[in-house]
């Protein structure tokens, strides 16, 4: 039985923390103001105003403490991450989830935050939100559909997304829990205590800035870990800013993915709007969804 954290209502408190890479405090202002405008109390974590002069938004101890406080504070109903980057691998095994387990709350983010989603899904059977983060509120994002989808999801609206058909799609339909996130992180978690068992699940994947050969290698890693074989469905989001080697790989990222899963029969769709490229709707990680991949289009409905 999965635990669904209580949905948010105006007046609730949302904590903003930065558990991975450094973020300019100014980059979070629009997000803070927007959340307040929606009627929430915003508790801005210390890692959002970090004096760090390096890559991280604070030392491991500082990032851990800030996240831990938000997890432990019963008044906090959701934890929205400022940004991803890199850093959760360094603290994930030191986080104490005992208070979170008793009082689950929404963990919101993507990219490096994939580690939190995977870890709490596998170890604490808790639903979380794979969604835009604080930075995505800037440059008009706060009024856009993706931030709106985050608000709707955390306030309890059922997610229903549609997208166009892609020539590579494999039609079919299924109803199963939806799990996944950033491919690099899912590969990096293989063999660790945070890894997701994907059998019978709808897996969604996205990535950014990777070499094509490396996308192939990571998919082989998932495949060789048995993580692609018994899926209920596969949702491929954006694979943006892909890079190639001097000796061209000779396949597009869609060719690569299609080849790796060609032996299986589950439905597959491509170019789903979850990505680092801007198109990034909120998805409830771990929640049961119906995926319909039809000739005309694709629907993913909670």
């Amino acid at each position: 039985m999965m635990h669904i954290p209580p949905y948010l209502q105006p007046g609730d408190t949302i904590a903003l923390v930065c558990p991975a890479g450094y973020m300019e405090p100014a980059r979070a202002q629009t997000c803070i103001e927007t959340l307040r405008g929606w009627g929430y109390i915003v508790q801005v974590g210390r890692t959002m105003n970090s004096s760090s002069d390096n890559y991280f938004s604070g030392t491991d101890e500082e990032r851990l403490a800030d996240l831990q406080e938000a997890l432990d504070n019963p008044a906090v109903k959701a934890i929205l991450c400022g940004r991803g980057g890199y850093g959760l691998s360094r603290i994930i095994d030191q986080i104490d989830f005992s208070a979170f387990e008793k009082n689950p709350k929404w963990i919101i983010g993507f990219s490096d935050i994939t580690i939190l989603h995977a870890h709490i899904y596998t170890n604490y059977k808790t639903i979380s939100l794979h969604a835009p983060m604080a930075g995505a509120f800037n440059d008009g994002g706060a009024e856009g559909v993706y931030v709106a989808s985050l608000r709707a999801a955390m306030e309890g609206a059922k997610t229903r997304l549609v997208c166009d058909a892609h020539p590579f799609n494999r039609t079919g339909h299924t109803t199963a829990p939806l799990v996944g996130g950033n491919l690099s992180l899912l590969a990096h978690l293989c063999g660790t205590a945070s890894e997701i068992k994907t059998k019978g699940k709808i897996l969604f994947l996205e990535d950014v800035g990777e070499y094509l050969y490396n996308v192939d290698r990571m998919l082989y890693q998932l495949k060789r870990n048995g993580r692609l074989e018994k899926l209920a469905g596969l949702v491929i989001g954006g694979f943006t800013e892909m890079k190639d080697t001097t000796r061209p790989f000779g396949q597009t990222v869609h060719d690569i993915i299609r080849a790796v899963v060609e032996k299986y029969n589950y439905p597959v769709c491509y170019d789903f709007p979850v990505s680092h490229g801007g198109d990034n709707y909120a998805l409830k990680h771990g929640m049961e969804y119906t995926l319909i991949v039809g000739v005309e289009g694709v629907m993913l409905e909670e």
Partner: protein
Amino acid sequence: MKRKHFLSSLLTAGAGAALPALGASGRRVAPDPTMVRPAAPRVPDYLTKGDTIGITCPAGFITMKEIEPAMQQIENWGFKIKIGDTVGKRDFSFGGSDAERAADLQQMIDDPGLKAILCARGGYGAVRIVDRLDLSGLSNYPKWVIGFSDITVLLCHIHRNLNMAGIHSKMCNSFPDDWSKAEPVQVESILSIRQALAGEVIQYPIAANEKNRTGIGEGLLVGGNLKTIETLSGTRSDIDTVGKILFVEDTGEYLYSIDRMFWNLERTGKLGGLQGLIVGGFKIKPDDPGEEFGRTLYDIVLERVKAYNFPVAFDFPVGHQKNNYALKYGMSHRLTVTAEKVTLEDHI
């Protein structure tokens, strides 16, 4: 008889592959290294003059012309060469299709007349064919598999599944066209391949480094390309490192990514039970502007191994560089790190 030997070696390899137990907190607990005694590896016969070495391309493509310097040198050493079908084949970056590369390597694995299989070059592609391979030919007719970088996949896979020794070294694409223009370390690195094949002692010129952590460790030497090791995590080619000496090298990775890979080693239980850690060459990709990682490779490694006591040696001559000496993969070694010098000895 041979079949029996094969089965028993598989069983030992399987038992050795158990990961450290999960503690009550869910974190991996480092086992007591004195409790773990990895089984002695199977060592293929060393080569003598007249023996044959196969050359194949399990990953990236290479032309016939590009392997000529290697062929000349290997023939000078007194060995015969069998050129695989994949040499000169090309499927974009690969040395032939997956089926062609797998078939070529399989045929060499099964060939009782071969004493070694030299991979022509790395690149990418071994992981796409490794599960198609039937290793029983290698078990029945043990032979040295030679290579590094992407070939880490094969070295790990053979160590994990057969507990058979291999050679981690430069490949055909690193043999100089003109020996008179090659740097001494490059020449020595190439010559160390012959030494490894002949079972001779290799003297590694290892500079002392003030960042090293002193100590002595003994165990099977395993490792290879760090990124490749990470991408094998959880698969049936993943290596168990408990009671062993681990060596790692990499090229073209960001510092943050190297840090993340060391965390993968930690979180998959590959650091806790080590007898020693050897850090080879790391060609680091410069940080993107505004994404400065603020830690050096030394910082990353030393921070990660702080909780343990095994010796750590930096700047070992292994990696994507001219000084890349042959290592006897999966064989027993002693690593001695003092303030003045570092030695790595086999035949212990």
